[in-house]
Every structure is written in structure tokens, then in C-alpha cells.
């Protein structure tokens, strides 16, 4: 429908320069430039390398998205950008670009939360989000259970990791097994050939007195490293596929168990899973199995929309416009530790300090 908001979204919180364009719940373009190859030799994302790559890729990626969508920047109803959380220098490139386009084109600017965007992207895949929405976000940067009564204004953290993010544990175990970076896809691939019941790795924070919705993957990672090292020390072969499958099972077992518990406790009958680890095939299949058994409807966007991208930011921006939420001011800061409870950043100067007349002389 032509009267749905047309919004461009910019995402630069980590190593992907993402620009998406949506009209309401319809995805029109999703352009991504990734610097992941430049980070591989360091075994992790190097902030300065990521920021340099964002600067180079920013305008060409915006141009590519507009071309892909077949729309003119003048037709946009708003420009949304990840204001946080993420790497400070990386965020700043996207925020600065968003401001410049918003100001030059005379469009409202929406600084939005990266985590809320991960949830909202599912509107592009499965239509309007139920209210409230239960979301499990799992990636290299985050592992959170979130309850969102209103994705544009009310997102409540139920639990999160107390140490490593789930994706981080995948990367670390991949390194122990010599599988390279990023580790998630490599472990997933190898695990398909392994026995997930071969080794009983620990399930963190699942004891009777442990926090219900928090996660811990640090102990698991160490247990895997110790197990592998002990084998090597004894001169035995390491059954890498079994290790990968058993490790992966320990992660997805805890994730899905806690997510379903959260749905039950809060009377929510559906679950959305997002973030890069949502691309994991075993997480998807186990979540499906357990949701079906519990009578919960599962919503998982396609893998390309689960990893960091601009479309998710545009999706939340479009929802902000549709619901008439306040835009951000042009002094919007990039906030590397923006709490998830701040779905958007309305800004701290008053609109009247900026004159509108000089935009349209």
C-alpha cells in the first residue's frame, strides 16, 4: 500500500554496513557490505578496522539500496539508524550519515535500538508482531530474552547472558577445534555429522536456584576446551564432529528451554528468535519441536534477516512512523551501551533550536 511509511534504515553497530528500505511491513531492499574477511585474521572484530570499512562502504551501500528498491531518497518518509548498543566508533559512522541524509533531505530522523530492531524485522517476514511479543535474541554480541508489549516503546529485558554471548561461545569453540572465524556456520555444518549425545557438556544456569532467564556460556566453552585438550594430551584423536554436535546441543538446549519457560510464565503463546545464531539449523529445529509440544507458535525470520542488517532498522523506523512516535533531534548521540529499554532516542535538544526555514529556501 502506497500510504504505508517508506523508511530507509542504517545499521553499523558491528562489522556489517547494512542499509535497508521498507514500506510498512514490506521489504524493498537489503544491501549489506561486510568487513568480516578483514577481521578473520585477528580472530574477532577489530573496532578500528570495522569503522574504517563503514566509512568506505556507507554512501555506496545507501545508493545500492535505493537503486534496489527503485525509490528516490526524496520519497522517503523517514531515516532510521541504529543509535546503540554496539561499537562506539562504528555506530558513529552510521549515525552521522543518517543525520546528514535526514537533514539534507528534510526527513525525520529515528535513532533506534539495535536489539528492538532485531525483533521488529520479523514484521517483514511474518506480518505484524503479536503484542506482547516474546523474543530470544542470540548472536555474537547478545543473548537476551525480551518481552515486548510494544516494539516502538516498551521492551523489557527478562534475562541475558552473564558472561559470553552464545555466538561468542561458538567462535571460541570453533577456534579450539581449528575451524576458523566466524565459528557459528562452521560448527553448525560439522555438527550435522556428529552425535549430539556423545559428550554430556554442562548446561549453564539450569540448577533449581539459578536465575530462570539468564544464560551463561563461559563454563561450557571452558569445559569443551578442557575435554579437547585432555584428549590431545593423551594422544587420542579428537572426534571433532561429536564435540561440535554435543557443544551445540548444550547451547540450544538451554536457549530453547529458557525461552519456552519465559513464554509459559508470561502467558505468551508465540516466540520469535532473532540474531545471527538464529541461523543455526539445530536451534531452529529444536525450537520448532519444543514450541510445537508446548503449543507455542514459533516465528524465525530467514537467516539473512537474522544477522545484522539495515532492513531491521528500517522495519522499526517504519513502525515508529506508523505509530506517530517522536523523531530524534540532530544532536542524536551514538550510545555504545544503549539499554534495551530505550527503544528509541528522542534526543535532548528542542526542535526549535534547529530552524526549518533554511532547509527549504
Amino acid at each position, binding site marked *: 500500500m502506497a500510504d504505508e511509511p517508506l523508511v530507509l534504515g542504517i545499521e553499523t553497530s558491528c562489522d556489517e554496513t547494512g542499509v535497508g528500505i521498507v514500506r510498512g511491513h514490506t521489504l524493498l531492499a537489503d544491501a549489506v557490505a561486510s568487513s568480516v574477511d578483514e577481521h578473520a585474521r585477528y580472530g574477532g572484530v577489530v573496532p578500528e578496522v570495522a569503522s574504517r570499512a563503514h566509512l568506505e562502504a556507507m554512501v555506496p551501500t545507501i545508493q545500492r539500496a535505493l537503486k534496489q528498491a527503485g525509490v528516490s*531518497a526524496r520519497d522517503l518518509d523517514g531515516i532510521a539508524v541504529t543509535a546503540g548498543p554496539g561499537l562506539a566508533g562504528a555506530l558513529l559512522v552510521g549515525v552521522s550519515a543518517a543525520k546528514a541524509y535526514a537533514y539534507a533531505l528534510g526527513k525525520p530522523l529515528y535513532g533506534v535500538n539495535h536489539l528492538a530492531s532485531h525483533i521488529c524485522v520479523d514484521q517483514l517476514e511474518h506480518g505484524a508482531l503479536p503484542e506482547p511479543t516474546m523474543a530470544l535474541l542470540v548472536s555474537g554480541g547478545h543473548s537476551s530474552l525480551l518481552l515486548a508489549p510494544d516494539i516502538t516503546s516498551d521492551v523489557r529485558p527478562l534475562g541475558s547472558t552473564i558472561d559470553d554471548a552464545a555466538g561468542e561461545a561458538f567462535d571460541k569453540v570453533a577456534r579450539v577445534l581449528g575451524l576458523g572465524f566466524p565459528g557459528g556456520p562452521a560448527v553448525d555444518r560439522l555438527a550435522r555429522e556428529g552425535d549430539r549425545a556423545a559428550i554430556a557438556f554442562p548446561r549453564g544456569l539450569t540448577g533449581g536456584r539459578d536465575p530462570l532467564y539468564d544464560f551463561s556460556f563461559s563454563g561450557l566453552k571452558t569445559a569443551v576446551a578442557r575435554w579437547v585438550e585432555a584428549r590431545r594430551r593423551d594422544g587420542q584423536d579428537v572426534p571433532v564432529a561429536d564435540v561440535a554436535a554435543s557443544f551445540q546441543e548444550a547451547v540450544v538446549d538451554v536457549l530453547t528451554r529458557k525461552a519456552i519457560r519465559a513464554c509459559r510464565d508470561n502467558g505468551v503463546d508465540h516466540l520469535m528468535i532473532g540474531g545471527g545464531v538464529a541461523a543455526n539449523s539445530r536451534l531452529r529445529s529444536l525450537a520448532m519441536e519444543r514450541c510445537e509440544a508446548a503449543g507455542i507458535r514459533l516465528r524465525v525470520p530467514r537467516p539473512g534477516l537474522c544477522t545484522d542488517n539495515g532492513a531491521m532498522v528500517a522495519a522499526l523506523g517504519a513502525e515508529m512512523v506508523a505509530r506517530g512516535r517522536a523523531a530524534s533531534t540532530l544532536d542524536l548521540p551514538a550510545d555504545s551501551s544503549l539499554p534495551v529499554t530505550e527503544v528509541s532516542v528522542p534526543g535532548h535538544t528542542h526542535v526549535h533550536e534547529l530552524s526549518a526555514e533554511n532547509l527549504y529556501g
Partner: protein
Amino acid sequence: MLLLAFDTATPAVTAALHDGERVLAESTVVDARRHGELLVPAVDRVLAAAGRSLDEVTGVVVGVGPGPYTGLRVGLVTAASFGDALDVPVHGVCTLDGLAWAAGEAGLDGPFTVATDARRKEVYWARYDGPTARVTEPAVDRAADLPEDVRALPAVGAGAALYPDAFPDRRPDPAHQSAGALAALAAHRLATGAPFLPPLPLYLRRPDAQVPAGYKAVLPT
């Protein structure tokens, strides 16, 4: 002609409008930690002060550094975005050249050195024969390690002020980068057909390959 100039390569967040003859308006705020927050509001302020609109701008002039990275990128990505959104050319100018032009306006016309703060006990610097005649490529070094003949010259910029022992003949003006000076230099270059730099950052250092804890980090070997 209406040039919109800005520079975020130094602690100053500075923006100016220039009509080819003179600076119409300038805003300079020194706040090394808030380049991203202050730049677009500064652009808005100079347009308002000059009573001009953004769609009258015929070209964007941006300081390309050298400068500490995070702030430097704010100006460059803003310039590239304005250039694309407004469909006008973006002219890159070495930040040190802007300071050299301002030094000329302050009365220096013989050989001199421009040095800015590069942090980590180093300076970004270049040697000039005059306000529009840079004779060395911009470089980054410890002030005390600069060639003796360079250090002996009159010196301007925060780098000179920071290391008085290394620069015995330091001059107080200009203390900070000025987008007005940068715009005036750009207008001069446009009038004389002198070339610009591409609007790409002069980092002069390789990135620190530091992977922070908690971000897709992996076990140490």
C-alpha cells in the same frame, strides 16, 4: 558559488559558509568528544546565520585530516552523505592546509611548520614555504623527533603548543582549526584551478588490531 565547509579532524567542530568572496558565517566549538553530536547542528546554525538554504550549496569542502580517527570520520561521512543527497561535489582539503591558510591570515608568510595533536605523544605535521605552499607530505611523529630545521621554524597549531620544548618559535594564531579558513582556501583553489584531495581520510597510522573482550572475541592461543 556557495561552499559549505567543515572539519572534525581536530578537537574543534567547525562549520562555515563561503560565497566565493568571503565567509558568510562560521561556527566553531571545541569539544573533542562530541563531534558526532555537534556537527549537523553547527551546519544548521551557519545556514541560519547567513540566511541561506542548504539547496543553494554548490559544493562541500571537508578537512580530510590527518586526525584522530573517530572524530575525523564524522566530518568525512557527513560530507559524503551531503554530497550524495544534494548532488554536489565534495572537495577534500588537508586539515593542516586549513591551519596554514589561517596562519597566513594571522601574518605568517615565510616558511613555517603546522603541527596538530596526534595523541600518544605524537604530532601530525607538515612544513610550508608559505600559506598555500605545503612542501612535505603530512606525517605523524614524536615532536622531538622532527628534523631540527623543521622544529626551528615558526610553528602553529595545538601540536606546537603541547610540546613547547620541541618548537621554540611557536605562534599563538591560529589556535584551532577554522572552517572559515578552510572554505577560503577552497575558494582560492577553485579560482586558481588548483587540485583538491579526494574526500578520504588521512589516517597515517595502521589500525590497532585490538579485539575487545565481549565482542565476537575468541580464546587467546
